[in-house]
């Protein structure tokens, strides 16, 4: 049969955002793929060069609607490195709690979006119902539900209010029960496993070379988590483990990538609990924060989607001279021809859904 190109997107249920995936098919089998970006390009880096350092947290919040806190945090961390700002201990704990709550919300967003990809619309409602709980929690200290702007250079906007710990504990307890229910619903479901097992395989060596990080790499059994290996905030002092899964020796499939994220949610709950236990009293914002900076600095963090890195260059003025964002999904999408080849056209939603795409950060 003659080979032909099919264009999926920019308006396609598979895409999760605005992008196009061109696939070359031979009958039903994928021969080649060519992802195309740019539909959502907002030139965030250029806009950042025109705004003052502290103004840019508004832009970073809007990089990814599913995990805005983690992106603001990555930016703030690199600017603090550039300006040599010392963050108070309590602020570090609050940040860690917020990051983990955001990770839970982000993974739930993903899980909810993944289920309709597999034809399981009810799953979306279950997961998004739980995401709502975490959005409510994130709203308590920050005041907003999607774009928080809570993490500031030098600390956090304000201290957490009284009763936040009890409220969080109630939600976590409920959510733990729900996760058990979901294990029966999805992991042990034959239909779910038929759709996801042995689909979209790539090996750990391949993934490292192609720049795939985060849960997608940990799904290959590789213990690589920047919260441990390039530790920031207080992750080093807490007791938690890197979660890995593998479909077979050194490779992942859609199911192992799903399971890694479920395991990570359990681990995030542990981290939040131990944070509350150890949290000291004290100020939540550094007393003096410079507005000008010289030199260059970068920090990387473990975003829910992989390695996020921000590289900031200052020229002595109050605005960044150059600000570069590394988005984990940018490289993961670029590698998609490697893990799509050889599968059927109908597997594309299952494979592309399993890598957790967020186009906001990818297109910058």
């Amino acid at each position: 049969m003659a080979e032909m190109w099919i264009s999926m997107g920019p308006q396609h249920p598979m895409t999760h955002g605005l992008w196009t995936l061109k696939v070359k098919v031979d009958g039903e089998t994928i021969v080649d793929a060519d992802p195309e970006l740019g539909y959502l390009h907002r030139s965030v880096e250029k806009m950042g060069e025109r705004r003052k350092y502290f103004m840019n947290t508004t832009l970073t919040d809007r990089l990814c609607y599913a995990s805005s806190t983690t992106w603001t945090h990555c930016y703030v961390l690199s600017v603090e490195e550039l300006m040599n700002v010392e963050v108070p201990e309590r602020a570090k704990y609050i940040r860690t709690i917020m990051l983990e709550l955001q990770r839970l919300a982000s993974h739930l967003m993903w899980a909810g979006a993944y289920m309709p990809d597999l034809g399981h619309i009810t799953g979306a409602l279950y997961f998004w119902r739980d995401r709502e709980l975490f959005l409510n929690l994130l709203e308590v200290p920050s005041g907003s539900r999607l774009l928080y702007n809570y993490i500031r250079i030098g600390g956090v906007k304000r201290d957490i209010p009284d009763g936040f710990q009890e409220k969080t504990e109630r939600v976590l307890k409920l959510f733990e029960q729900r996760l058990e229910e979901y294990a029966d619903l999805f992991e042990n479901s034959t239909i779910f496993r038929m759709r996801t097992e042995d689909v979209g395989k790539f090996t750990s060596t391949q993934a490292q070379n192609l720049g795939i990080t985060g849960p997608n790499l940990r799904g290959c059994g590789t213990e690589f988590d920047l919260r441990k290996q390039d530790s920031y905030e207080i992750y080093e002092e807490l007791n938690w483990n890197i979660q890995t899964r593998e479909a077979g020796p050194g490779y992942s499939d859609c199911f192992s990538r799903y399971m890694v994220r479920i395991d990570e949610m359990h681990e995030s709950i542990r981290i939040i609990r131990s944070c509350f236990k150890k949290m000291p009293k004290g100020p939540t914002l550094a007393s003096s924060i410079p507005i000008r900076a010289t030199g260059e600095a970068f920090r990387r963090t473990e975003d829910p989607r992989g390695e996020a890195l921000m590289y900031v260059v200052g020229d002595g003025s109050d605005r960044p001279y150059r600000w570069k964002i590394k988005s984990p999904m940018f490289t993961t999408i670029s590698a998609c021809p490697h893990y799509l080849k050889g599968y059927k056209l109908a597997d594309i939603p299952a494979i592309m859904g399993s890598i957790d795409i967020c186009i906001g950060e990818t297109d910058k």
Partner: protein
Amino acid sequence: MEIDALVKELKAFKGVSNVSKIRNSVIKITMEKGESKEFFTEVRDNFGFEHCSLISAIDNQPDFELVYHFSTIMGSVTVEGTDMSVMLEVHIFLERDTPTIDSISDLWGGANWHEREAFDLMGIYFIGHPDLRRVLLPEGFAGHPLRKDYVYEIHEEEW
């Protein structure tokens, strides 16, 4: 390999200068453009930098600067005996008239789109790149907007 031993070995390479260490786990070096390809091949094959994190292009007016970030994943480099993800930051300076450099996307698959982005927004040409097209901006767009001398059609008000 211990990170200090790695620093010593890197110093011996041709074209390497200004070797320094940031935050214990990051090695920062300056590299000459001509020797870069051999150096990068060596870095990937013998020192275990499996992952190309980022390629950033900076317009320093008049020169361009490329900053490469590589990192280890499997713990081939250790810091004081503990397994950490060590990073290598490589600075390469390019002249404004000849913003070209050898592509490394044959060494790291992940570098492919980073190079395309640097080409798209900053106008750096990567020799030997398999598919050097614009990635974020549309085909046929004129100019490279992250260059400092790029002129906007509409003048924005200063914030």
